[in-house]
């Protein structure tokens, strides 16, 4: 009843091309952001540390892959490695220049990832589809090998692992062992909101339309004057930038330290699944996908033992892990068959229904 577009007229081009044309949508998104910030003060540290921070980090990585796979139609299996480049670059930068604020380095580290991504995106000019997927596998395995074999990347420390040094912002520790989940959550949330806003402007603007044109029909796009070389490489660079920042956040603001193994091929696959389930070519879908794939096993871990225990069956954590794989696999097939546009499409349908409710004619 409250959700109506009646009476809201678009009188100029700016209003017509707005991302949230409805007043209710604008209020809604404002409320969601407000609630997200409020959660930092209301939620307990388990919720923030084990659910919300990783959810936001994976959402950011999904947005990155979605720009490449969903908007530009180039399949990549190297997401994990590109995240790794961001994390290692951030580590090198902040240990080499401890004087500069670490937030700056988190944003800058994405550019290293973007450069490497564009380099491995070069084959995309000649090949596409499965062939490109194999080319990005080369990036995945080669970069992971670099993480193991080049001790310079971890400043020659013996364990070969990345660790988060103590860093502060306005005198409050945001990184390292003393940083509270609350502060880290606020930092991650702010970065993710900022980058999502940027991505939203990118994909709705000229650049985004170029990507979509290349995805839908590259030949026609080229005839219209879109240069495939620059467009595809830009997609690779922007996508890798997002993945790189997500990787830096993952290691330094979530785990607090990690080894090369975090960035293995399974990480790449899981982010791809988030994108598929959330919806190819949809930013909000990236959040839905990350939520479903990441939060599902946590929910399963709580619900399954509770349901099974009355029957005398104890469910171990390994069974839950296996069930997670099965359910994720089945969900992917289910979504591809029933709703190839993913959760984002369901969201749209829901909104449409709500607009017409209670008189859907």
């Amino acid at each position, binding site marked *: 009843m409250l959700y109506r577009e009646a009476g809201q007229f678009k009188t100029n081009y700016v209003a017509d091309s707005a991302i949230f044309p409805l007043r209710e949508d604008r209020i809604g998104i404002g409320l969601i952001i407000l609630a997200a910030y409020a959660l930092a003060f209301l939620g307990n540290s388990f919720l923030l540390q084990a659910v919300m921070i990783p959810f936001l980090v994976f959402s950011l990585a999904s947005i990155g892959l979605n720009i490449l796979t969903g908007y530009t139609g180039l399949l990549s299996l190297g997401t994990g490695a590109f995240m790794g480049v961001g994390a290692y670059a951030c580590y090198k930068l902040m240990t080499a220049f401890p004087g500069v604020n670490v937030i700056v380095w988190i944003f800058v580290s994405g550019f290293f990832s973007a450069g490497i991504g564009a380099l491995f995106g070069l084959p995309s000019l000649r090949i*596409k589809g499965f062939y490109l997927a194999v080319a990005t*596998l080369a990036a995945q395995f080669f970069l992971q*090998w670099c993480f193991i074999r080049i001790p310079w990347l971890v400043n020659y420390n013996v364990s070969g692992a990345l660790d988060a040094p103590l860093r502060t912002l306005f005198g409050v520790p945001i990184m390292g062992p003393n940083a509270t989940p609350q502060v880290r959550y606020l930092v991650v949330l702010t970065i993710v909101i900022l980058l999502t806003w940027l991505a939203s402007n990118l994909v709705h603007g000229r650049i985004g339309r170029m990507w979509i044109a290349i995805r839908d029909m590259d030949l026609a796009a080229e005839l219209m004057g879109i240069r495939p070389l620059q467009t595809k490489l830009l997609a690779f660079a922007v996508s890798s930038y997002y993945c790189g920042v997500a990787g830096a956040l993952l290691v330094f603001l979530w785990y607090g330290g990690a080894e090369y193994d975090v960035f293995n091929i399974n990480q790449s696959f899981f982010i791809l699944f988030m994108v598929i389930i959330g919806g190819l070519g949809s930013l909000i879908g990236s959040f839905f996908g990350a939520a479903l794939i990441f939060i599902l096993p946590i929910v399963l871990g709580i619900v399954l033992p509770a349901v099974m225990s009355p029957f005398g069956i104890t469910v171990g954590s390994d069974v839950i892990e296996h069930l997670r794989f099965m359910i994720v*696999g089945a969900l992917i097939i289910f979504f591809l068959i029933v709703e190839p546009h993913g959760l984002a499409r369901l969201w749209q349908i829901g909104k449409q229904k709500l607009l017409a409710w209670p008189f859907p004619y």
Partner: protein
Amino acid sequence: MDILYKVFIEPFVFMGEAPDLLIQTLWEGLVSGVLYALIALGFVLIFKASGVFNFAQGIMVVFSALTLVGLYEKGVPAFLALILAVLVMLVLAIVVERVVLRPLVNQPDIILFMATFGLTYFLIGFGELIFGGNPKEMITDALFLPQGTTELDMLGGMVRFQHLDIAAAVIASIMIALLAVFFSKTRVGRALRAVADSHKAALSVGISLNQIWVIVWFAAGIVALVAGIMWGARSGVSFSLQVIALKALPVLILGGFTSIPGAIIGGLIIGIGEKLGEFYWGPLVGGGVETWLAYVIALLFLLYRPQGLFGEKIIERI
């Protein structure tokens, strides 16, 4: 200059000085190449007949081997377990056709490709749930696979041939020959080739696409089982085999997606190239190059000949 010497001269000098080591390396490359080819063959079979790039082939290798070993551990006699494993692959083929392929007819290739990702994860979870995630030993004795080694005096040194490797090479060759006969001589094989050429034309002469897909997935399942037994005997049955199976992708790129001889030759090139690279050039960069060398070879290859050595058509490029 020193680095150039180390890259371009020293390895070859070393090869000339110790030909027995070279032969040993070549032999190991050959065997792993044959096994890569066997995995790649499963991909080619399905790709030819249904145009689906089956990412799940790697996990089918693990899953079939796991079924065999898991059944044996539960007390089923080895050969009965083998037959049951074959039956499981048949059931899998029927279920995949019904549940995954049929509803996705006429979807873009990339959607089907992603559906096989889903299948991969489902099978990983399913396999681990039933048989447990621990690595298992392949039942080499019970299947009468030979063990032990032969050492031959050759070129001033000893070269070791594992009997298992010889058996693997022989069985893989027989398998490939059987498939070649199956494709060219039998009625079903001809139907498969017809489907590969054109789905519509095949339908119009009365070939049932659904049946063909079941047959082809079943054939790929059997190839997977053989590959699983051989790889399992060499390095144990565990889900890490899946990463080895990913190596079949560069093999396919080298050989072309639609060519059976291409899969074999691509497998040999990757297998031998990888072992030579690891043994002679690997130490220069700290070793472990085996994990990515195959992909980089494929990547370089793609830039010059995107359709592969024996690929049928030039892929669209822009």
